[in-house]
C-alpha cells in the first residue's frame, strides 16, 4: 500500500516541497515588511553550496556537523540578503533589479558555481545527510508511515517554522508592526516603528530561510552538490508566496502541492508512464496565475492581496 502512486507522490511531495516551504516562508517575511527579494534562487544556491561544504570539511559528530551546516547555509543566505537589503533599503535602489542581480551574481554560473568548482564539491555524495529519524516500525505504518514519519528532521523543523511565523505575524505586537511596515510605512513611521530596521531584519531572516531551503537540497534531497542544484526552486518559492496570499499556513499547503507536481513525473515513471517533467514544472506557475486572477477584485486584494507597500522604497516625505 505504501508503494501506491498516491502515497509515494504525497510522501515525496512533502520532501520536495520542504525547500520551497523554507524559501517561501523567508520570502513571505521579507515581503510582509515590504521588501521584494527576487534573489531567492541565488540565496538558495549559496545555502546549498556552503552547507554542503561544511559537511565535507567539518569533522565532528554527525548531529553537530549537520547543525553547523544548516547554520552556515543560513548565514550565507542572510549575507546575500544583506547585499539586497543595503541596496534597496539604504540606497533605495529598484528592488526588482537588485533581486535579479543577486540571483545572477550568486546563482547558477555565478558565485555558487565558482565555490562549488573551486572547493571541488561536485560529483560526490554528502558525507553526512539528514535521514529519517523515526524507527522503522513507525515508518511502515500504512499511509502515515511514509508521509508523516518517513521524513528527515528538516521537514519537521519546517512545520515548527510555519507555526512560529504564523503566530508571530498574526498574534504578536512585533508582527503587527511588521505588517504595518509592509502595508503603510508612513503610518508605521508616524507611530514610532523604525521602517528600515524592520525591513533589514526581515530581509536578512528571509535570506537565512532561503539558505536553509537550499541546504535541504544538498543535504537531504539530492544529497550532493551539482551546479544549479535548485533548478528554479527559488522562483517557484516566489510564486508560492503569491499563491498563498502571503499566509504562512497556505504556504505549507502550496509548497506540498507544488512539491507533488515535481514528484509526480518520477512516480509515474516508476509505474511505466512517461511524461515530460518540464511540463509538470510549469503547473505551479499556472496555479499562481489562477490565484492572482481570483484575488484581483479590490475587496479581495485588501484582504488577501500583496502588502500595499511591497517593492516600494520608503523615505520620509518632504513637507
Amino acid at each position, binding site marked *: 500500500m505504501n508503494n501506491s502512486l498516491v502515497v509515494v507522490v504525497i510522501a515525496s511531495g512533502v520532501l520536495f516541497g520542504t525547500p520551497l516551504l523554507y524559501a517561501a516562508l523567508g520570502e513571505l517575511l521579507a515581503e510582509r515588511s515590504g521588501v521584494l527579494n527576487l534573489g531567492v534562487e541565488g540565496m538558495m544556491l549559496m545555502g546549498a553550496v556552503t552547507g554542503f561544504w561544511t559537511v565535507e570539511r567539518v569533522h565532528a559528530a554527525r548531529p553537530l556537523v549537520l547543525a553547523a551546516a544548516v547554520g552556515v547555509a543560513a548565514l550565507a543566505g542572510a549575507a546575500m540578503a544583506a547585499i539586497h537589503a543595503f541596496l534597496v533599503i539604504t540606497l533605495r535602489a529598484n528592488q526588482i533589479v537588485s533581486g535579479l542581480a543577486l540571483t545572477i551574481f550568486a546563482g547558477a554560473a555565478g558565485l555558487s558555481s565558482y565555490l562549488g568548482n573551486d572547493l571541488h564539491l561536485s560529483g560526490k555524495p554528502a558525507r553526512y545527510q539528514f535521514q529519517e529519524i523515526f524507527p522503522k516500525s513507525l515508518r511502515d505504518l500504512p499511509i502515515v508511515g511514509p508521509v508523516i514519519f518517513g521524513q528527515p528532521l528538516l521537514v519537521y523543523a519546517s512545520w515548527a517554522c510555519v507555526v512560529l511565523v504564523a503566530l508571530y505575524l498574526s498574534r504578536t505586537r512585533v508582527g*503587527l508592526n511588521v505588517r504595518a511596515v509592509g502595508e*503603510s510605512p508612513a*503610518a508605521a513611521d*508616524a*507611530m*514610532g516603528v523604525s521602517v528600515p530596521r524592520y525591513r533589514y531584519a526581515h530581509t536578512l531572516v528571509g535570506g537565512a530561510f532561503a539558505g536553509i531551503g537550499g541546504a535541504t537540497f544538498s543535504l537531504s534531497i539530492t544529497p550532493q552538490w551539482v551546479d544549479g542544484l535548485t533548478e528554479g526552486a527559488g522562483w517557484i518559492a516566489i510564486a508560492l508566496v503569491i499563491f498563498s496570499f502571503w499566509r504562512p499556513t497556505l504556504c505549507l499547503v502550496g509548497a506540498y502541492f507544488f512539491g507533488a507536481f515535481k514528484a509526480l513525473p518520477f512516480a509515474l515513471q516508476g509505474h511505466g508512464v512517461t511524461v515530460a517533467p518540464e511540463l509538470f514544472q510549469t503547473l505551479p506557475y499556472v496555479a499562481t496565475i489562477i490565484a492572482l486572477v481570483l484575488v484581483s477584485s479590490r475587496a479581495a486584494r485588501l484582504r488577501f492581496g500583496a502588502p500595499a507597500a511591497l517593492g516600494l522604497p520608503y523615505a520620509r516625505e518632504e513637507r
Partner: protein
Amino acid sequence: MDFEAAAGEVHALLGENGAGKTTLSNILTGLYRPDEGHIELFGEHVEFNSPRDALDAGVAMVHQHFRLVSPFTVAENVVLGDHRDVGRSFFLRPRAIESRVEELSQRYGLAVAPRARIWQLSVGEQQRVEILKALYQDARILILDEPTAVLTPQEAGALFETIRAMAADGRTIIFISHKLHEVKAVADQVTVLRRGQSVATVPIVDATPRSLASLMVGHEIEAGRRQDGGQEPGEAVLELDEVWADGDRGVAALRDVSLTVCAGEIVGVAGVAGNGQRELAETIVGMRPATAGKVRVRGRGIRNGDPRGAIGAGVAYVPEDRLGTGVAPGLSVASNVVLKAYREPPASHGPILRTRRIRELAERVIERYDVRTSGPHVPAWQLSGGNLQKVVLAREFSGEPVALVAAAPTRGLDVAGIETVHSYLREAAERGVAVLLISEDLDEILMLADRIAVMYEGSIVGERDARVATARDIGLLMAGGEDGD
C-alpha cells in the same frame, strides 16, 4: 520661531501654505530635527530624534493625510507601535485593546467600531481613529493638521466638541488651519505664522477674522462672496442629461445627473469628497464613459469616453490631480503648455514639432500668467503648486474653450495662488466661458459661483442660487439632508 502653548488649551496655528505650519509640527513630532533652538515640554528641555521620542513624551499628531493601515482593524491601528507594555505582553490581546478603544471613543464622542477595518470607514471615521490612536498613547499634546479639510460642516462641528472635551481633560490641542472662522470657533489662543516666523499670538477673544487675515498675508485681503451678482447668463453651453457612470469599483458613481451650465456662468458643485465629483468631471471631459445619458456641448453630443472629442468640442479641464493628470511632471514647462496644441500649427508642422515656436509660446505663457520659473525648459515637477496650476490654466485657456471644468483648482495652494486662480476663473466667465467649478471648499464655491449644485452619493441633491444660499443649508445637503446635530 517662538511658540508656546499651555496645558488644557486649544491653540490654533494659522498661516498660509508654506508659512511653516507643517514644518513646525514635524519638528514637534520628531520627524525633523531643528537646526537651532530647543523645545521645552512642561518646563523640561526635550530632544526628539524620532517620532517615537515624541510619542513617548506625549506629543501626537493627526496628519492631513491619515497614517492608517487600511487592511487593519481600528483596534490594530490604535495599538500599532505601542511598546509601553511589550515586556508584559508580547502577544496581542485584542479584547483588552478593543474595550479600551470603546471606552475612549465613548468618553470623547468618537463613534467608531473597534473591529471595523479602515478601508470600510468614511473619511470622518478614519479621522476619529487617528485621534483615538493619540488618546490611546496618552498624548498630552495633540496636533491636528487641517482636520476639517475633509469633513462636512456637521462633522466638523462634532470634531470641535471632541476637541473641547479633550482640552477640558487638560490636554493641549494644537489646531492647524487656514480657515479663519474655524479658528474663531474652536481655539482659545491663536498664533499666526508667516514665512516661517510667528508674527503674533493673540487670545481669540481679541481677534477678528479680518485682523487675523491681514496678519496672515501681511496685507488686507478682500473676502466675502461675489458682490456683483454676475452677468446675465447666456445660452446653455454644457448640458448633462440624466447621466449615469460607473466608478472605479464598477458601482454607479453618478446617478441620474442633469445639469446645465450657461455661457458666462459659474456653477459650483459642492459636496464632501468621494460623492461622485471626480467621476462627474471625468465623464464630462470624456475620460470616463457614461453608462447612460448624454453630455452635450452647445447642443452637440460628445462621443462617450472620447477625451479628444471633448477637447475638440471646446471643453477645457483643470483636473483635481494636478501633478498626475494635469501635467506630465517629467516634461518641461514648454512641453506641458503645448500638450493639447501640439497637433496643430504653430506648434507642429506635419509630424515635426517646432521646438522654437513651442518655446516662444511657453515664454509668452510664463509672462502672461506670471509663472515663477527659471525658464520654459524646467521640468514641471519642480514648480510649486500655484505655478503648476497656472501652467495648466494657461494651456487650457489657450485652446479658447467654450466650457471649463475645474476640479478642486485651488487645493493645496497658498492664499496668493488661490486669488490668482479665482481671478482667472472669473475672467473666463466674463469672456463667456461656461465654468463648472467642482470644489470641496464651500467658501470658495459661495464666493465664486452663480449657482450651486450639491452632490451626495452620486446624485445632485439640490441646486441653490448662490446669492441666497447659506453655508448651513448647503452643508445639510452635503451631508445627505440629514440633520447632523
